[in-house]
């Protein structure tokens, strides 16, 4: 009876986890970001993201797990451009996770929103539910004509048509770092030991990645910045991506 009550309490806890093993968080400093798009390219290279081609882009089927959103204000010569890199926010209360009928997306103990490619049957409800619209669907099979197939990352699968994909915080690198840490004698992954491809590439060091459970990590310190905010905070998605507001010298 007591076991039943304990089980009931455990399974009735929202989110199930008492705490995350590592609470992977990314912080994006919009003041440092130059909008160069190196993160987009790095992500594409690391994660075998297909080149959709001109026709695909014209049809609106671009595949960019990390994308740079651009917003223009005003007309030339007084046009102002704001941009923001947008990627999967790995929300703790992700709307996309609840709706998958086959549990192809769920929250793992590292606080990551995980996509299981081989379970996905392609209902695309997760993409509809995502308010950040960061989920990308493989509308067709993609090909890497020789010798481009040589550039594919062997640690990451190539997705077939009909499967949904999105940013994974380079989970293959996280997994590798955790394995190395374990081999090294059961230690924890050190802050800065592992970075997703976008964070590694950013020339302005606008992207910072780490464990927010660790109070001394670089990303925890970014979160304490008074400029910190979440995109679409009012939706209560509890995202794991923190943006640092750009200080605008021209505004008011």
């Amino acid at each position: 009876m007591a076991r039943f009550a304990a089980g009931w309490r455990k399974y009735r806890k929202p989110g199930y986890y008492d705490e995350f093993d590592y609470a992977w968080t990314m912080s994006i400093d919009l003041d440092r970001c130059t909008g160069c798009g190196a993160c987009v390219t790095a992500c594409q290279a690391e994660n075998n993201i297909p080149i959709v081609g001109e026709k695909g882009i014209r049809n609106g089927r671009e595949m960019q797990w990390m994308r740079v959103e651009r917003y223009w204000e005003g007309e030339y010569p007084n046009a102002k451009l704001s941009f923001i890199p947008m990627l999967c926010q790995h929300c703790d209360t992700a709307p996309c996770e609840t709706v998958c009928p086959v549990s192809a997306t769920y929250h793992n103990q590292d606080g990551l929103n995980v996509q299981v490619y081989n379970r996905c049957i392609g209902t695309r409800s997760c993409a509809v539910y995502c308010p950040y619209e960061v989920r990308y669907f493989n509308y067709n099979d993609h090909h890497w004509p020789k010798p481009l197939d040589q550039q594919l990352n062997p640690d990451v699968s190539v997705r077939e048509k009909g499967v949904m994909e999105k940013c994974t915080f380079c989970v293959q690198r996280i997994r590798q770092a955790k394995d190395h840490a374990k081999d090294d004698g059961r230690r924890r992954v050190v802050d800065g030991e592992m970075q997703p491809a976008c964070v590694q590439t950013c020339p302005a060091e606008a992207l910072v990645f780490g464990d927010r459970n660790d109070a001394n990590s670089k990303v925890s310190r970014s979160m304490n910045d008074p400029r910190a905010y979440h995109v679409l905070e009012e939706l209560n998605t509890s995202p794991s991506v923190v943006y640092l507001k750009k200080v605008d010298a021209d505004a008011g």
Partner: protein
Amino acid sequence: MASNALGLFHDPESALDAAGRLKDAGFARPEIMSPIPIHGVEDVLGPKKSVIKRFTLFGGIFGGLAGFTLAAGTAVLYLHPTGGRPIIAIPPFLIISYEMTILCGILATVLGFLISARFPAIRERIYVPATAIDKFAVTVPCDSGESYGRAETILRTAGAEEVQRIGEDGP
């Protein structure tokens, strides 16, 4: 020789009348065959108990419990935390058990119907095709030639167009 007396009637009132008279005369419960359900059968021949509603009730209760167990049990068997919700989320699982309640209620009602009306009919039973069109038939089992004669008289007095004698297992 055991047999059945069957009387064909033109209208439902005569058939009901005949059935009532047969019952009063001491015969076993007559059966009335008709193309449409006749009202007033229970007044003449006595009330019928319906056991179907018990099937429906138990089917529904079973379905409700089974639905919740299915949803909660499978959620616990392979833990997949999603969207910051608990593993056993009550509102979605109540919807699942609601649907299962209705599904099992429906299936149980069908089962109850088949059992209580003794369907499907494996052996031949007494049947006159005219009753599917516009005639009403009253049948009653007779265990001897003498009782058949009595039954025939009652049926004809009540207005039967035709009276047949049918063997035990059908025409």
